């Protein structure tokens, strides 16, 4: 039986301003003319799709509901399943879901009263060690005695790898152990606790075939020869022996602008390694030029103004791609305008969908000129009882070992999916760490995009304008494979560089 398609309304706008100018982008101007509805009556239009290989059935049915003059906004109806195909086939448009505003009355249902903590009565001493029994300091231990209510206890191990926790009962719904680096984390459900619990963590082996290396054999990929530059807007990058940073800037107010190295949290260094590490481990785009734009002060949030400055700097530095493994639920007009500027300057912004357990896609990924990336995983690419074993949740792909991570945000704004569960990459002080998140999926996709552009040097030679961005999107659209999760979860699918991905779907 054929699955019923869910039709939704979207507004189409030019990249900037409300009306298209044929001098700015003749292709988009022609397209707007094609969609014009002069008599204000809905019209069905069949649009061709950019796919490889091209088949006669590759068409998208779009209903044009309304139009503000020939050069202005269009209101269209399209199936959610076909939206990713539309976005990649017709780049250079802002695609905004039609919204309906309501009176700003506070709903009582939104007020959540939190239940009180139960009294703690039971003490557990956790000893977290390596396989030889040496204690590991600085490991976060989280014990849930009532997971749905969020009740339990948490602490960090001391120099001997010990932490004492008080809980209200001796049965844990689940235990999570989070080392910062060098080891895999640990996860176990339904644990009968004793007064002393020893947990041995598995060290990270650098030749381990993790989720990223299962889909992209990074050690076999040749270094990129063409000049492709990726700007990483994050906590800073490196230094690390496997990373070569071409430059960057610290945009945090009051900090040294030349200190664009990692603030110690490791997030940006991990992201950079997924893209461009070369040494004991390899990223997907070894040889790419990495620019580090630091916007996160240590332990604090990044100002949207500093993120604007970072995008502006990436434009000035002539990056080809920007990686933004960050997001918030609020729409942000300030950053939107700079993503527009980047698109008009011939560069694409990749952004993480967010990690709020299947919530709507975060901003700026949700903005239609961003490339929004969800996170997927693969069973068997992480150890049993690792944190990652708790992230498996349907939908599964055509290959039932592939799944969309339980934490990944989803929605019609999703453009692509990429590996984001149990990813090994670089960490400050020449260490290595395993991390999960759409933060990891985003650079995996951006790095493969860089590799695809390196193999298409003609697009890199185009003048830096909107047409260059449009052409970059078109090239990506020819190098994407569907995994069978559904458009809301994977968009148009996963980017591929060579034939190795085809047997893994």
């Amino acid at each position, binding site marked *: 039986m054929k699955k019923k398609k869910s039709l939704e309304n979207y507004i189409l706008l030019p990249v900037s301003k409300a009306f298209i100018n044929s001098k700015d982008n003749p292709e988009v101007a022609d397209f707007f003319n094609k969609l014009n509805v002069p008599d204000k009556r809905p019209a069905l239009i069949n649009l061709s799709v950019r796919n490889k290989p091209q088949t006669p059935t590759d068409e998208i049915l779009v209903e044009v509901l309304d139009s503000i003059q020939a050069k202005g906004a269009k209101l269209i109806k399209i199936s959610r399943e076909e939206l990713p195909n539309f976005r990649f086939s017709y780049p250079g448009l802002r695609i905004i879901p039609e919204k309906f505003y309501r009176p700003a009355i506070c709903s009582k249902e939104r007020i959540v009263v939190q239940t009180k903590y139960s009294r703690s009565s039971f003490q557990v001493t956790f000893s977290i060690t390596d396989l030889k029994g040496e204690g590991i300091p600085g490991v976060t231990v989280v014990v849930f005695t009532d997971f749905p209510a969020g*009740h339990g206890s948490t602490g960090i191990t001391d120099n001997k790898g010990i932490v004492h926790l008080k809980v209200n009962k001796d049965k844990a719904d*689940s235990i999570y152990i989070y080392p910062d680096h060098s080891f895999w984390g640990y996860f176990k459900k339904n644990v009968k606790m004793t007064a002393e619990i020893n947990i041995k963590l598995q060290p990270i082996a650098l030749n381990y075939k993790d989720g990223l290396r299962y889909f992209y054999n990074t050690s076999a990929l040749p270094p990129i020869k063409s000049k492709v530059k990726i700007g990483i807007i994050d906590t800073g990058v490196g230094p690390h022996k496997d990373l070569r940073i071409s430059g960057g800037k610290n945009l945090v107010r009051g900090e040294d602008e030349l200190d664009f190295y990692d603030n110690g949290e490791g997030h940006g260094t991990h992201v950079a390694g997924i893209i461009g590490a070369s040494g004991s481990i390899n990223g997907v785009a070894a040889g790419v030029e990495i620019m580090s734009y630091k916007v996160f002060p240590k332990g604090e949030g990044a*100002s949207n*103004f500093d993120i604007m400055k970072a995008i*502006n700097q990436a434009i000035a530095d002539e990056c080809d791609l920007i990686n933004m*493994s960050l997001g918030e639920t609020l729409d942000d007009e300030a950053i939107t*305008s700079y993503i527009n500027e980047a698109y008009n300057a011939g560069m694409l912004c990749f952004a993480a969908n967010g990690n709020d357990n299947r919530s709507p896609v975060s901003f700026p990924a949700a903005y239609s000129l961003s490339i929004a990336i969800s996170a997927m995983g693969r069973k068997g690419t992480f150890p049993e009882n690792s944190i990652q074993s708790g992230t498996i949740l349907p939908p599964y792909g055509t290959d039932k070992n592939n799944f969309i991570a339980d934490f990944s945000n989803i929605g019609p704004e999703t453009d692509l999916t990429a590996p984001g569960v149990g990813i090994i990459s670089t960490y400050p002080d020449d260490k290595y760490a395993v991390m999960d998140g759409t933060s990891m999926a985003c650079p995996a996709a951006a790095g493969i995009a860089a590799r695809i552009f390196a193999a298409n040097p003609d697009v890199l030679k185009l003048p830096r304008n909107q047409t260059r961005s449009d052409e970059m999107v078109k090239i990506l659209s020819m190098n994407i494979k569907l995994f069978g999760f559904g458009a809301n979860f994977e968009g148009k699918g996963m980017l591929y560089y060579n034939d190795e991905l085809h047997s893994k779907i």
Partner: protein
Amino acid sequence: MTNFILKYKGAEKPDLNKMTAILDAHKGHMIDGSLLPASALIEIDDAAFEPVRKELDGDWSIVPEFSYHVPDLKKKIKKS
């Protein structure tokens, strides 16, 4: 005092003198002008937001500064 981001919306060159005079008149000041003439980070009293917005006369959009956080997947215990 609260931080806001000004973003110029007009097609012509912005009148920066007019913009700074409006800020001065409301005891506001510019924190970061490195993106001028396109954008600026300003600090104004909450009560001055509406008059400043009106006096900027649609030439500038004015939106609050806010923070993005480093994504963290660690499970958290809820505080009572």
